[in-house]
């Protein structure tokens, strides 16, 4: 346990339980968060469409990854099927909008609720499985749901995919990147608050108990089955919201986007960010979204310097993404959040940091 990183900070005196479990432990961190939010809110003024699209991607992936973090990081149930739930949310939202004409802003939470149902259904059998068997069962769920997407023409448009409308509020269409950015930002802030709140509540503590030592948790009276299934449900809710936002951003949903590769990327996001930490998830998502972009930039620069490489650069890109994940896991297995805490500790304890 690193000195200075997790111990109480100077000037932090909690005199009541209420202040102890505040979301932002110090006034400084709260002000920083608000400042960051303000900067983001002004984003569309000074960022071009490319950066806005990246931030939007980070936004909806973060929401889904937070869901996965609840399931895997806090409750200890590893799931390789998250992309399938993401897809359920995306298709549901598009389908509700296309078939029933429900305004898109309503479709998104409705899609989240529907995905929760699906998640609860899958959680029922999954609650009985432990460890590696659960991992493999979620892998199977991923393939089965993907197959369902391929087949259910009425729901997903089959393999040709389906169009998803853009968000409209009283006739004002949020169809440019700049405008959609605010929609995603709103949902992201809401999700962050909800998830952080969940983790400091009774249910959140139950999840952590479930992960750390489920036998003791059961002895203490925590209903294991209920909380396991609940974890699946809640994580699916956020996956569904993330998926719905994705669908209405792309304007087009097709089943290929929700394969095992995306599930693996979600797991990568929370592991690289740091399991069991909200901020870690954000960092992990930023890493996973920016990694292909950085590699593309590097490839572009490489092409200018050494044009004879030609199409080989594409292969190097793929290898670079895989190697980045591998190297990161070898050298920083506890994730970016650990690195962040180390950095903070270094600053705090200077010149005695070691």
């Amino acid at each position: 346990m690193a000195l200075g990183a997790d111990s109480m900070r100077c000037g932090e005196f909690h005199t009541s339980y209420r202040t102890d479990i505040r979301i932002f432990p110090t006034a400084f961190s709260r002000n920083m968060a608000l400042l960051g939010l303000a900067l983001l809110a002004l984003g569309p003024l000074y960022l071009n469409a490319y950066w806005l699209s990246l931030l939007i991607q980070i936004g909806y992936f973060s929401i889904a990854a937070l869901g996965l973090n609840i399931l895997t990081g806090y409750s200890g149930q590893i799931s390789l099927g998250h992309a399938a739930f993401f897809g359920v949310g995306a298709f549901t939202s598009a389908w509700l909008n296309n078939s029933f004409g429900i305004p898109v802003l309503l479709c998104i939470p409705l899609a989240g609720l529907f995905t929760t149902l699906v998640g609860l259904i899958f959680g029922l059998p999954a609650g009985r499985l432990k460890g590696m068997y659960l991992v493999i069962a979620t892998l199977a769920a991923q393939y089965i749901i993907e197959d369902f997407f391929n087949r259910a023409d009425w729901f997903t448009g089959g393999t040709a995919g389906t169009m998803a409308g853009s968000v409209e509020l009283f006739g004002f269409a949020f169809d440019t990147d700049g405008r959609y950015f605010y929609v995603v930002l709103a949902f992201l802030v809401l999700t962050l608050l909800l998830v952080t709140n969940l983790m400091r509540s009774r249910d959140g503590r139950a999840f952590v108990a479930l992960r750390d030592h489920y036998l003791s948790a059961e002895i203490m009276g925590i209903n294991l089955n209920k909380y396991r299934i609940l974890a699946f449900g809640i994580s699916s809710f956020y996956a569904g919201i993330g998926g719905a936002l994705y669908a209405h951003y792309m304007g087009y949903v097709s089943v290929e986007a929700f394969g095992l590769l995306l599930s693996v990327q979600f797991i990568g996001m929370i592991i690289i960010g740091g399991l069991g930490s909200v901020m870690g998830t954000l960092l992990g998502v930023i890493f996973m979204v920016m990694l292909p972009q950085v590699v593309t930039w590097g490839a572009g620069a490489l092409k200018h310097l050494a044009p004879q490489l030609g199409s080989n650069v594409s292969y190097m890109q793929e290898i670079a993404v895989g190697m980045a994940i591998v190297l990161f896991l070898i050298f920083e297995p506890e994730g970016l959040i650990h690195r962040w805490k180390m950095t903070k500790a270094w600053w705090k304890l200077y010149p005695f940091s070691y």
Partner: protein
Amino acid sequence: MDWSLLLAFAVNGILVGALYGVVAMCFVLIYKATQILNFAQGEFLLIGAWICWATIVQFGLPFWLGFLVTLAFMFLFGVLLQMVVLRPMIGEPIISVIMLTIGLSIVFRSAMNWIFGSHVRSFPAVFDTDHVEILGLNVQMPYVLSFVLAILVVLGFFLFFKYSRMGLAMRATAFDQQVAQSLGVSVERVFALSWAISAMASALAGVVIGMVNGVSSSLAFYGIKVFPAVIVGGLDSIVGGMVGGLIVGVIENLAAFADTQYLHWGNLLEVVPFYVLIIILMVKPYGLFGTEDIERI
């Protein structure tokens, strides 16, 4: 009901299932020894197939020599992989290691695509007769070879684990690492050896599949098919791996039979292994031969 066709499908299922079984046994070997779910198992097949193809086609070695070179290469590859990449990860949470193997699988697949290109390549013909007929199904010689090899591999594993010192050491490590260590077993060597043997046997399967279907990056998908096989058989039972592989192969083909004759859904055989997986997990959570996890407080 077309019985002869059904029988043909069933025979095909057993042949394909034997290959699944070999890969599943390799997977279980790694899991038993190191508790790691190796998502890069399919890539071992791929690398083995490509190396063998390269030695035969690009370097012009005769088949048997190329095959042996491949086995030796894969042995070294497994050892190196364990030493360089996986040893630093000992003690880390299991999900990080799983993610690591997934990252490795991405790297290997891209590297193979880069080095050998993305076209399907076929092996030059190795056998004089093209196929034999078994119970009404034209069976290609490589498949017969694979079945023979699969049986040899099972026998080899059995003899190795039962009678050799190293095999005994591996079993001890799988049972309880700390006790084995205290008795003088070099756990590092056991880990490295388990990865090496797994890589070698997977390469064997890869070469056989490559001989029949041609070598291409789709070989890696066998790494995903292995999951239903090990679940059916039990994650920590090597015999279970083979049995699970056979069962999955047969069920796949029976599903294909039902699909083409009656259902016309199209791709039932692709998803059926996963439905079977879920059903087996409901009924027998630890598979047919897996050891039940008795929880003690």
